[in-house]
């Protein structure tokens, strides 16, 4: 769970999420291109941040992937994203 922790720490520091869930879905992609035997390649992130207010979906996704720029591509092969404001998520 090393990478999950790293993703959580980076996103928490940068985007002050009200809600953050980082799920390692690598097992769902075992044996597929980009997957590594040791896992930790495919992740799903559900994040609720006030900083997304007024930003387009594309802009929100860029905010997330820029925070993880050093990890994108390697070790992160795929990142499924759901980005919401507190108002949208109703939290």
């Amino acid at each position: 769970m090393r990478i999950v922790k790293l993703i959580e720490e980076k996103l928490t520091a940068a985007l002050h999420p009200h809600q953050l869930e980082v799920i390692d879905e690598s097992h769902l992609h075992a044996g597929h291109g980009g997957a590594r035997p040791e896992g930790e390649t495919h992740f799903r992130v559900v994040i609720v941040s006030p900083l997304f207010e007024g930003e387009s979906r594309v802009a929100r996704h860029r905010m997330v992937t820029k925070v993880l720029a050093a990890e994108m591509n390697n070790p992160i092969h795929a990142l499924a994203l759901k980005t919401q404001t507190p108002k949208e998520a109703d939290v």
Partner: protein
Amino acid sequence: MSEPAVFSEIKANLEANDVVLFMKGTPVFPQCGFSNTVVQVLTYLGVQFKGVNVLENEDIRNGIKDFSDWPTIPQLYVKGEFVGGCDIIREMFENGELREYFAGKNIALEAAAE
């Protein structure tokens, strides 16, 4: 800083086709679940699109990420405009926004086959 040479190849694709999907594999044989999702959505809506298989061209595979400032594949473009990746297209499809978006861009949608 001058533009990478591959940008002109990408632009030529966007100019020649209203709807372009940069993807892994082909529309008939997607080689990645995320690319496949977008193909399914476009097919369901009856949108004509050109699929560009980035697995066949390493320059485009890397270049498209810089071109759009977007680190992942697939990437959907409509009339030269970057719309989003798999999650965004799926969200827009599910809440009906995608249909409206295509209509606003004057992209023909064929009714789904009976």
